[in-house]
């Protein structure tokens, strides 16, 4: 009896071994499986460890009060979030981030589109303009921030000339609670409109010429040709540029530090600079993680709604 059982066991195990080796042989043509085992894990590991895991951990740590040493032990439930939403500076940071989005949509992107429409055709003058307008985008944010800090300096830069001309007191705009963020918005437009312009130019150059010619034959005016033909045809470029400008707005940080560092009195923080100032520099892991989670949720909600509504037609 026991003999029988072992033989059956043996037989089934050898046949399953055979199945495995047959499956392996069939799927490993050209070392397919071997290549997979070699090629996939590096990226998978890196990505999981440094991108995905930290997000999960941020959610977990945000429920603790913790300075980052030892194990997180002081469980505080949602009090980090409560503190966060009660903090005036956080409100300002959210509001400022929202202002960046608004200015992007209302000023920056239309400006980029108008410029793209006027210089998308190939000529040396247009290439030169394109080059100039794109230049700020390749500068590092910290360098751009310092340049503009000089421009806005009440003693030296534009503001000095401006107040001199008006014969008023020197005005330190970056130290002015009411105006500092407006100055930052100017820099943002300066830095990024060229990027969006390039997206539109690439899209406009892909619009077939005969379509525009056909619209002219149909009697469309310049403006009508733009409104009814060109803009609908570059809609996918516009959708993408809106997507990038909003995601970019949500993570503005590098530019804030050299310009104001979030001051005066925390009036120019964005979500990320707030996170840096109140989470990282003070090693408030729990509190900082809570800010991160809010930021993450904003991004995910935005990305998913945008993709499932506006970008849906594209695919």
């Amino acid at each position, binding site marked *: 009896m026991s003999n029988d059982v072992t033989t059956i066991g043996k037989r089934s195990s050898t046949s399953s071994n055979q199945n495995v080796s047959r499956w392996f042989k*069939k799927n490993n*043509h050209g070392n397919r499986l071997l290549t997979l085992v070699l090629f996939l894990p590096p990226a998978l590991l890196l990505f999981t460890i440094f991108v995905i895991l930290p997000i999960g951990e941020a959610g977990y740590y945000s429920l603790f009060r913790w300075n980052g040493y030892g194990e997180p032990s002081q469980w505080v439930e949602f009090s980090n979030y409560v503190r966060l939403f009660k903090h005036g500076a956080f409100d300002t940071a959210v509001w400022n981030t929202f202002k960046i989005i608004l200015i992007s949509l209302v000023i920056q992107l239309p400006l980029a589109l108008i410029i793209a429409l006027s210089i998308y055709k190939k000529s040396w003058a247009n290439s030169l303009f394109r080059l100039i307008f794109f230049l700020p985008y390749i500068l590092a944010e910290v360098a751009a921030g310092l340049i503009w800090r000089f421009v806005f300096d009440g003693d030296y830069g534009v503001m000095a000339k401006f107040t001199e001309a008006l014969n008023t007191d020197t005005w330190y705009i970056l130290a002015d609670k009411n105006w500092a963020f407006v100055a930052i918005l100017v820099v943002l437009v300066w830095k990024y409109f060229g990027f969006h312009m390039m997206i539109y130019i690439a899209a406009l150059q892909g619009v077939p010429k005969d379509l525009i010619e056909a619209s002219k034959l149909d009697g469309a005016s310049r403006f009508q040709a733009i409104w009814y033909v060109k803009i609908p045809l570059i809609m996918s470029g516009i959708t993408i540029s809106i997507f990038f400008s909003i995601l970019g707005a949500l993570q503005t940080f590098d530019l804030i530090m050299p310009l104001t560092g979030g001051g005066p009195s925390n009036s120019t923080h964005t979500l990320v600079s707030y996170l840096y100032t109140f989470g990282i520099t003070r090693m408030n892991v729990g509190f900082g993680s809570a800010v991160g989670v809010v930021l993450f949720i904003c991004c995910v909600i935005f990305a998913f709604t945008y993709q499932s509504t506006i970008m849906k037609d594209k695919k």
Partner: protein
Amino acid sequence: MASVEFKHVEKVYSGDVHTVKDFNLKINDGEFIVFLGPSGCGKSTTLRMLAGLEDISGGEILINNKVVNELEPIERDIAMVFQSYALYPHMSVYQNIAFALKLAGMSKADIDEKVRPVADMLQLTPLLDRKPKALSGGQRQRVAMGRAMVRTPEVFLFDEPLSNLDAKLRNSMRAEIKALHKKMKKTTIYVTHDQVEAMTLADRIVILRDGKVEQVGTPREIYHSPANKFVAGFIGSPAMNFIPVALNKQEGWQVDLAGQTLPLLGDVDDHQSSANATLGIRPCDIHITPDLLSNPLVIKGKVENLELLGSTIQLTSRLGESQITVEAPSSHIVNEDDEANFYIDESRLHMFNDQSGLSIYKPKGKPESVVSQ
């Protein structure tokens, strides 16, 4: 020296798409075989299974009596010419031809010794340093062939190699392929949807439809004795006329057609016969004759449409309910709306069973036997 054999070969894609069904074929050494069929018939899939580019879902493929199902393409001793040529764009002509040899670990000198004669044979020597981008369509085609030839494989595979060329080049490349095969005498399998290529190149043609073999035979057999209605209609241009008829047996077999009775002189397969059948006759086997004959095989009809094609004319008329096409030498003087007499060459008649589509008629004095699968 290589034979190729397919035994009950099947190809099923996930989701029950049965692309090749029970494919059986034995190919002799040195034979030139053409797989012919409409797109989606499974001809390319079969070729790719032989090449090792697709898994074989069932059955066995043998090269030189050795099962190759599990072998890598390189171990099967085959070479292949692709429809798009698939030349490596970043390599020169020389590197393209030499690539397989390089992968095999051959020394530079040995590679050179093999590449040069092949390039000479294909008149590629002056082009060896060029990139594929700088070549004409015909030159690319020759590089693709050179790449296959340099390995001196046992079996050559061609997957629609001429379909990207213009008509003129296609004719000359076809002749070149034929000449090369004559010279090298290697077993060759050639996939095409172009019946002219199939008829001119093949020792034997395999006609496929929906993953199944419809007929295997020499070009002559396929043309003159199609095994079924599909083959009859697929081969020949303009296509064979099909006319539904009533078939009955009195003293001998006869059919009723357009109010006339046509006697059949050949043999009808009694087992396959039925009262309703389809009569098939090629446009070139209907002749225009003067009025004087009163023969049961002469039928009157009105010329509805006439096209002059050069050496021939093509006209359409009506026999009873069915429209027919007739091809005649252009020396005939007929006009549209004329009444004409059509003589049907009885020895060239075909008859097909309406249910199975199989050929059920063998005219008298026809030497080739029908090979059906």
